């Protein structure tokens, strides 16, 4: 069994969970206190010692199921054991479909696991009979689920006593699907008498909001990091001194109480620095694919900073701070921006010169050395005047200015890209994946050289 556990650890590592020797040692010493034979306890013990975050936990569950299910099946093949009982296909053919549907719904609503497993087998048998198997397990699961009409929303047209009328609990349906999947896999293994090759879990299986650039969760994580870095910026030089600033006036005054002995040292209060951020985001067509990514960055930034103003621009600029403050849902935000901001005039091409002058008009008085300006855009002016002089003035008034460009560095300054005109006044970064966003955050922490 020890060997098996190590294999299991190895498999988790293969899925990208950081498991060190110390974790495995913990798992072993924990298992000395917990009966190995209790499935729930065994699983929870391993999870508590091996998976150290919620993401890890999700991967852990998937790998655990796969690993131990396969292990059991492999043993069964070696021993030549076949699953006994269940329902023969002939019997299943005689089943009344409507009755089966109702039974499944009932079991799902009550969360009766044992019954659900039996019914899953029955359903598979019944559908196998109809010759609908596609050969792909995932597709079969969805087909069966659909023909069983398992839905979470209420179906008021059904008769009063039907368990589906009120809608079914989502978790239980998911559990039923997992059972269907397992049973189908078992069937397949029994048919072919061998295991299908183990495949690494793809990103989709991990049920993260995916898409090449729109990995919202990842963006939020990186921005959370960004927030911490901006907040502590400048504190590193102060080191231990930050608690040693004595307020002489107050100390003298307090010492009167003790006959002139400074028994109470009064320190100058430490005022934490509040970052102020201005973000300008290009939403024109030339950056369409990137603007979803940029908007999700904006969205995440708004979650983290209170003192933040955001603007979107194409030909002109429009402040969208309000929209982000009101709307929580990312989709609603992007719709509201598309509807209300009114940044496109006629051509739909970015006009950086106009954007700078409008931005300057709107915020010039508020800009100060503690402010950070971040521009998200491709710096393609469509042949218009870049007006880098205005940009330089903005950059000079703000403390730091960053430019995140969604194009690979290779394309910079080709065609109508004028990033070099701006680059001399700000720090420009290539940024179109969360990894690059992370690099940018790291660069932020480097000490400033001015």
């Amino acid at each position, binding site marked *: 069994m020890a060997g098996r556990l190590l294999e299991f650890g190895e498999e988790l590592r293969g899925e990208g969970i*950081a498991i*060190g020797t*110390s*974790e495995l040692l*913990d798992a072993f*010493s*924990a298992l000395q*206190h*917990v009966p190995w034979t209790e499935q*729930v*306890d065994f699983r*929870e*013990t391993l*999870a*508590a*010692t091996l*998976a*150290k*975050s*919620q993401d890890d*936990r999700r991967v852990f569950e998937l790998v655990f199921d796969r690993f131990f299910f396969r292990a059991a099946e492999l043993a069964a093949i070696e021993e030549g054991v076949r699953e006994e009982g269940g329902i023969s296909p002939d019997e299943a053919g005689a089943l009344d479909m409507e009755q089966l549907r109702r039974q499944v719904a009932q079991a799902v609503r009550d969360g009766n696991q044992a019954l659900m497993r039996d019914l899953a087998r029955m359903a598979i048998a019944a559908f196998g009979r109809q010759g609908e198997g596609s050969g792909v397990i995932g597709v079969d699961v969805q087909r069966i689920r659909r023909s069983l009409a398992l839905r979470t929303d209420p179906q008021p047209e059904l008769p009063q006593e039907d368990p589906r009328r009120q809608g079914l*609990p989502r*978790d239980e349906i998911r559990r039923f699907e997992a059972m269907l999947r397992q049973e189908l896999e078992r069937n397949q293994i029994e048919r072919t008498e061998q295991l299908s090759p183990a495949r690494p879990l793809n990103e989709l299986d991990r049920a993260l909001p995916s898409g090449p650039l729109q990995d919202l969760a990842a963006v939020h*994580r990186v921005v*959370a*990091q960004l927030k*911490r870095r901006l907040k*502590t910026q400048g504190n590193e030089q102060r080191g231990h001194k930050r*608690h040693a600033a004595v307020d002489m006036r107050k100390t003298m005054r307090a010492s009167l109480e003790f006959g002139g*002995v400074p*028994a*109470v*040292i009064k320190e100058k209060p*430490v005022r*934490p620095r509040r970052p102020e951020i201005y973000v300008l985001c290009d939403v024109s067509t030339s950056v369409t694919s990137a603007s979803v990514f940029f908007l999700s960055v904006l969205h995440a930034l708004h979650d983290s900073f209170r003192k933040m103003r955001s603007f979107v621009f194409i030909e002109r600029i429009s402040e969208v701070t309000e929209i982000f403050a*009101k709307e*929580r*849902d990312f989709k609603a935000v992007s719709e509201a921006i598309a509807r209300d901001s009114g940044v496109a005039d006629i051509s739909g091409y970015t006009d950086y010169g106009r954007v700078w002058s409008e931005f300057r008009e709107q915020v010039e008085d508020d800009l100060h050395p503690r402010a950070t300006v971040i521009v998200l855009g491709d710096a393609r002016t469509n042949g218009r005047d870049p007006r880098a002089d205005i940009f330089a003035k903005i950059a000079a008034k703000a403390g730091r200015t960053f430019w995140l460009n969604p194009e690979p560095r290779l394309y910079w300054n080709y065609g109508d890209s004028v990033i070099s005109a701006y680059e001399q006044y700000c720090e420009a970064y290539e940024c179109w994946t969360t990894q690059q966003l992370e690099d940018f955050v790291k660069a932020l922490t480097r000490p400033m050289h001015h």
Partner: protein
Amino acid sequence: MPVEPTSVTDVHDGLRATGYLPGESTALVSYLATKLGKPILVEGPAGVGKTELAKALSKYLGRDLVRLQCYEGLDEAKALYEWNYRKQLLRIQAERQGTGWDDVQDDIFGEEFLLERPLMTAIASSEPVVLLIDEIDKTDQEFEAMLLEVLSDFQISIPELGTVVSKSHPVVLLTSNNTRELTEALKRRCLYLWLDYPELEHELEIVRLHTPELPEAVGRKLVEVVAQVRDLDLKKPPSIAESIDWARALLLLGAQDIDSKVFADTMSVIVKHRTDLDVVAERVGVKLSAPAAS
């Protein structure tokens, strides 16, 4: 009276007896923590009973609870120990004449002049305690690094005094609301426990435990509605504590059913953002039946 649990069921029943209804993994991880002497890192959304777990554990194990509430800018002086500067000063003044420097120096850096802060208290205590380090994610990484020594060896080094080694092994809980990633080094030393909103039946049981007089049907409806509300994308989804508050409010009002009117009147108990209120009224409120005409 200190209790030494011998099985997971022991912990489970013990926690129940203190009025905390643990989920299946909660009891198991708590049991492992007492056995292995490893800290537990409890993560989860706000208001699922992370802090309550520590209180229940201390009650069940018959140990004192030492609590360190973390916040931004928390440093060693506030968490570990501090020299009682005023007392030292007065001591020096009192013996200004005739005392050699060496005597004074030995004197003023004695335990008498040490102000114990929570971590120190937990380690130096002769009775075993439960140490709760609350909202560890609010501190900065430097503080986390300092914790490593305390959590892995249960000792604190004081330059003037030497090393204080724990006489009894405390049970340590760290809670985090997940506002930032904790360092790998810290996670490595802990058992991990994710607390999520409880399942329907479990929450119903919790609500019933706190408001036994609430009619059964209302209780069930209540947890169903709360579950629906949590499914929405809200700024602040209702916590367990808020479900209980709501149950108490309904009890006081003598509500016999949660219809749309009762819901509209009382939903501010579970939803506390203006924008959230609109969303909830629009998405959940309309699904409830209209009040019966009477």
